[in-house]
Structure formats: structure tokens, C-alpha cells
């Protein structure tokens, strides 16, 4: 059944359209950056955007930062929200079930197909953005890459004013910095970081979210050490970041898939999942909701940036993995309980 679901996924034009669009956004941004050579001040705009001018081989990381807040969750929610509800609305669900396909097997196959889609989408984004980045900005020599990052930070450290500036990522930012970057991780995910590419907002006028995002991005970039990042090291960090982004998206997929078993409207399931994410973003940036913040699905979304710290800062990454695992397990159990006992009347 898993094979059948994968064939369905692959033969669906929408799948490729979604992946194409996901790859297109970073490419468009790259073209603008490459033609104008106007980089956003480090820390402003999506993470890594200022660093890629020096080395295109970092562009996959910048591309992840671009698609993670909005595009990727939407694509995942569309595919996962459609998984069961789409079959239901089309009427094909009843024919699958009387074939017979056991309901549990169908749900597992759907989940696997969604996971494959997420992995494929992230790989496609990283792959195309690597090609685009290297083509437009040059591969940069691995040493140059690493040297470039602190340089940029150094240039702009004073300008940004907030200057987390620490060369020691874990200890440097200190308590307050950790706190604000925590809030930032979801603030940026909250959909603003893509929109504020190139936006010239002062600290005072910036809304809480962009500011937080900026701090987070800046701290992540500026905290890179000056030691050499070998190509394998860079590749490993990128893979880690991609893996973490995939896991973050699994939480979205689980929400959408669960809702998909509740309704015969794919749109309803998709929008429901997005509504849950937006709610989570809002609450994460709300101090008054601090008591629930650690359990919100988007809380650790930006923790993948920690893969580019030296040494890799694992606390938030680990917390994020556990949190997403919890969401996936609980929601998939709920989806299973609902789907296996419900009347299929569509």
C-alpha cells in the first residue's frame, strides 16, 4: 500500500508544483541578491542571507530559513490535509477500503507518503539552492566561508546595536540572550522573516516578531567561530539542519493528517492545521503565555540554526525533537482511533 501511495504522490501534478514553488522562492531571492549585491544587514531578514554573498555554499541554509516560516508548512499542510479527506471527498476512499485496504495500513501509508514528500521537498530546496548559490555567489573556499561569517558579523555588530557578538555561542549570549532567542525561534517562524527580506526596519519600530527573529538570526550568524569549516563539516551541519527541519514539519503533517481524518474537506484540514500553527506562533511570542510556550509545536522550529554554531548547540535541538515526536505520536494515535472507528459515508 505504501508503494501505491508513493505512486499517487508522484503522479499528482500538485506535488511537483509545490516543490517547484518551494525551490523558486530561494532562487528569486538569490537572483535579487546577486544582481544588486545589496545584502540585508546581518541579523536582519532570514538567517544566513548576509553570509551567502561571501559563499554560495551556505545558500542551502539561507534557503531553509526562507521557506521554513510559511511556504514549507503550507505545502506540508496541503499534502497532509488532503491525504485522507481528499480521498474521502473524491469517493476513492470507499473503494480503497472495500478493496480491501485496512484502515490502519492506509493511514500508515499516508503518513509515509507525507514524510517522503517532506524529505523530498527539503532535499529539493537544499539541492537547488546549493546549485543556485554556487552559481551566483561562487562556491567560496571552505576556509573563506568560515572567515567570511565572522567578518560580516564584525562589520555589522555595532550597527545592529543589540550585538550579541559573542564568539562563544553557548555562553556568550548569556541568559538574556538565550531567553530572547527562544522567543525568536518561533517569532521568526511566525511568518515574518520571509517577508522582511530587505525590509529596513529600525529596532524601535520593529514589531516583536521581526526583532526577535533578527536577534536570533544575528546571534546564530555572529556566533559562528572563526575556525575552519571543512566541506564535510559544512555538509554534515547542513544535513543535520535539513533533518531537523524535516522533523519539525512532521508535527505539521501530524496535525493536518489528524484533521484530515475528521473531515471530508481537504481545505478544512489544511486550513485547520495552519490555524493551529498561527495560534502557536502568536502564543510563542506572547510573554503572558510563557507557561505553555515550551509545548507549542512551533516553539523550537528555528533551533536548526544551532547546527551552525560552534560547537553545535544541542539543547534546543534535542527539546525540539522530543516535542515533535510527542506531537506526531499523540496526533497519529488520535487519527488512528478516529479513522478506524468512524463511518465512511462519503
Amino acid at each position, binding site marked *: *500500500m505504501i*508503494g*501505491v501511495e508513493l*505512486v*499517487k504522490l508522484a*503522479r*499528482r*501534478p500538485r506535488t511537483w508544483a509545490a516543490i517547484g514553488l518551494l525551490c523558486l522562492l530561494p532562487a528569486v531571492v538569490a537572483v535579487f541578491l546577486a544582481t544588486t549585491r545589496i545584502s540585508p544587514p546581518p541579523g536582519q531578514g532570514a538567517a544566513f542571507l548576509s553570509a551567502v554573498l561571501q559563499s554560495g555554499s551556505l545558500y542551502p541554509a539561507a534557503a531553509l530559513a526562507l521557506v521554513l516560516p510559511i511556504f514549507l508548512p503550507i505545502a506540508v499542510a496541503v499534502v497532509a490535509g488532503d491525504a485522507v479527506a481528499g480521498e474521502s471527498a*473524491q*469517493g*476513492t476512499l*470507499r*473503494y*480503497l*477500503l*472495500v*478493496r*480491501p*485496504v*485496512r484502515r490502519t495500513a492506509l493511514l500508515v501509508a499516508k503518513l509515509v507518503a507525507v514524510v517522503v514528500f517532506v524529505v523530498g521537498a527539503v532535499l529539493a530546496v537544499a539541492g537547488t539552492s546549493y546549485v543556485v548559490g554556487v552559481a551566483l555567489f561562487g562556491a567560496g573556499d571552505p576556509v573563506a566561508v568560515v572567515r567570511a561569517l565572522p567578518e560580516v558579523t564584525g562589520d555589522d555588530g555595532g550597527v545592529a546595536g543589540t550585538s550579541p557578538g559573542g564568539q562563544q555561542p553557548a555562553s556568550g549570549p548569556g541568559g538574556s540572550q538565550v531567553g530572547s532567542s527562544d522567543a525568536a525561534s518561533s517569532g521568526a517562524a511566525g511568518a515574518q522573516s520571509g517577508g522582511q527580506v530587505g525590509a529596513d526596519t529600525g529596532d524601535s519600530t520593529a514589531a516583536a516578531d521581526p526583532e526577535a527573529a533578527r536577534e536570533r538570526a544575528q546571534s546564530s550568524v555572529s556566533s559562528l567561530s572563526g575556525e575552519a569549516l571543512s566541506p564535510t563539516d559544512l555538509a554534515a551541519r547542513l544535513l543535520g539542519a535539513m533533518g531537523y527541519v524535516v522533523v519539525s514539519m512532521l508535527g505539521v503533517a501530524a496535525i493536518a493528517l489528524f484533521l484530515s481524518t475528521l473531515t471530508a474537506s481537504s481545505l478544512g484540514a489544511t486550513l485547520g492545521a495552519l490555524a493551529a500553527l498561527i495560534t502557536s506562533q502568536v502564543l510563542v511570542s506572547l510573554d503572558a503565555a510563557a507557561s505553555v510556550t515550551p509545548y507549542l509545536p512551533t516553539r523550537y522550529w528555528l533551533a536548526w540554526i544551532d547546527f551552525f554554531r560552534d560547537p553545535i548547540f544541542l539543547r534546543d535541538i534535542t527539546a525540539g525533537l522530543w516535542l515533535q515526536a510527542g506531537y506526531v505520536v499523540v496526533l497519529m494515535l488520535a487519527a488512528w482511533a478516529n479513522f478506524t*472507528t468512524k*463511518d*465512511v*459515508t462519503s
Partner: protein
Amino acid sequence: MSAGDAAQRSSTRQHRLVIETRRLTKRYGTRAAVDDVDLHVAEGARYGFLGPNGSGKTTMVRMLLGLVYATRGEIEVLGRPVPARVAEVLPEIGAMVEGPAAYPHLSGRTNLGLLDASGPRRDRDGRRRRDRVEEVLDRVGLGAVDRRPVRTYSLGMRQRLGLAGALLDRPRLLILDEPTNGLDPHGIREVRDLLIELNAAGTTVFLSSHLLAEIEALCTDVGVVDRGRLVLEDALDAVRGPTGRLLVRTPDPEAAVRVLGRAVAERDGETLVVDATTGGPPAPARHLVERGVPLDGLAEQRRSLEDVVVALTGPGSDSARTPAGGLRR
């Protein structure tokens, strides 16, 4: 109820039952979509499940297939309880439920291939799978269909495609919900011939329809459902039994009326309906011949299925007629 019992007795005597339900009830809220139904479908039968729209036919079909769970009552299909062991019986059942469905962006052939591949893992060989798909496409008259996506199919073609899907595993039992919906008269006849052919080869056919003529033309047994209740279940021949009246066609109806007197119950042009029990001569046919009244035709009057059904059922639940006869809206 008594009709149902009679059917059960007559059919269990000769055949095993492939579908049997006991006091089957499905409630949605307070409304009973299926209400206390005892259904009996004998092996080898062509069973017509007849009822107006909204009378619970589709809910019944869905319960038989384990798609919808009963509120109360028991279901046995092919000797096994449903839904508890439905996964064991479904591989032997071909089904169409409430119209065909397919992935609109794929061709009919690809759709069938996917459906086939979703099935029980008996035979993973690619070539045999392709052969199976071609075979059922041929059977339903879609053998020459090209690579157009199903989106562009007519309703009739989709219906044929759905039927092809139901035939994929050479099922022992076909459960078909309104299978000729959307077909032209030619297509309806083709499907009917196909079902009779399959039935002759041993497949039991359970078919639901709101079309009397379809069931009358195809089925050996009939169950009539009205507002969720099974109001009649019997062999079609028994339902369409003689009324005890004679149909007499004569070029000289005046003479016939004079001869038969009060026995003429109705007169319609040259055709007389003669009821020998209400008086008049006991053997009207012989009487007419002896008196020299010319006869063109002489036949037993049989009940039509329509008369029986109309007498047993109310208006369909999609009717918006108020009891007084005026339209509600």
C-alpha cells in the same frame, strides 16, 4: 415480515445464504436510516434491493461492506460476521457504492492499476496485473480506452470503470449500488447481460436500485425497502404472481360483456379484465368460445412489481409533498 420469512424458508432450503442480516439497525441521531432489517440473499441469486431514494439502500450497502458500523443487529456475509471479520470477506466481494470514483487526473487504466495494486497481496507480478486490468476493461466495454484522464470521461464511462474495478478479483459476490446510473439504454442492456453472464458463472449479484424496470428485468429475488424498513422480500416470480383475473382481448367487446355479465371488472377498448370470482360463469374463456365470441388474446393477469411496490411504500423521502398534497416549498 411474513413475506420475508417465506423467502428465507424457500431460499435456505435450496441455497446457502451469502448475505444475512438480523435486526440490522443504523441510526443517525434519532433518525433510523436502516430499521430492523432481516435480509436474506441466497447464493447464486440475482437479488434486487429496491427502494425510493433516501430509503436506506446505500446505508445498507455500506454496512454490508464494513464502511458504516451498525447501531444494532448482526450481519453475516459469506458466512463470516461483519464488520468483525470483514477483511476476510472483502477480497471475495466486488463492490460499487454510490457511484463510481476515480482519481480524475489519471487514466482509467492507471486508476485500475492502482486499485489492483492496493488489493490483497496475492499476485505482485506486473504482467499478470496488467493482464487483469485489460481483462476487466474488456469486460465492461472499455478495452479500447486511451490514455485520457478520467476527468474527461462521461458518466457512463466512469460507471463502466467502476464496474471494472468491482470485477478485478473475479468476486464470488457483487454488491452494486445503482450500477446502471448514467448509462444509455444500450449500456444498460450491456451491463445487464454482463451481470447475467457473471451470475450464470456462479457469481451472486446483489444490486440496489430505485428503478423498478431494472430490477424486474434482471433479478430473481427482490427486497423492497421503504423508509429504512424491509417491507417485502421474496422471489420475483412469487411477487408477480397471478391476480386471479383474466385479460381477454376481443374484436367484439360488446358481445363479450353480454356473455360474461358482472364478471367483467374493467373494460379498456378491446381488452376486458375478467374476474371469475365476482359472479358470472365459472369458466369465462370456455364460455366465450362456446357462445361464439371471437377472441384475439387470452392471458392471466399478473401483478406488476410496480403495483406491489407502490402499494407497500410511501413516497420517497426526497419528496417534499405535504400530506395534503401541496408542495411544501
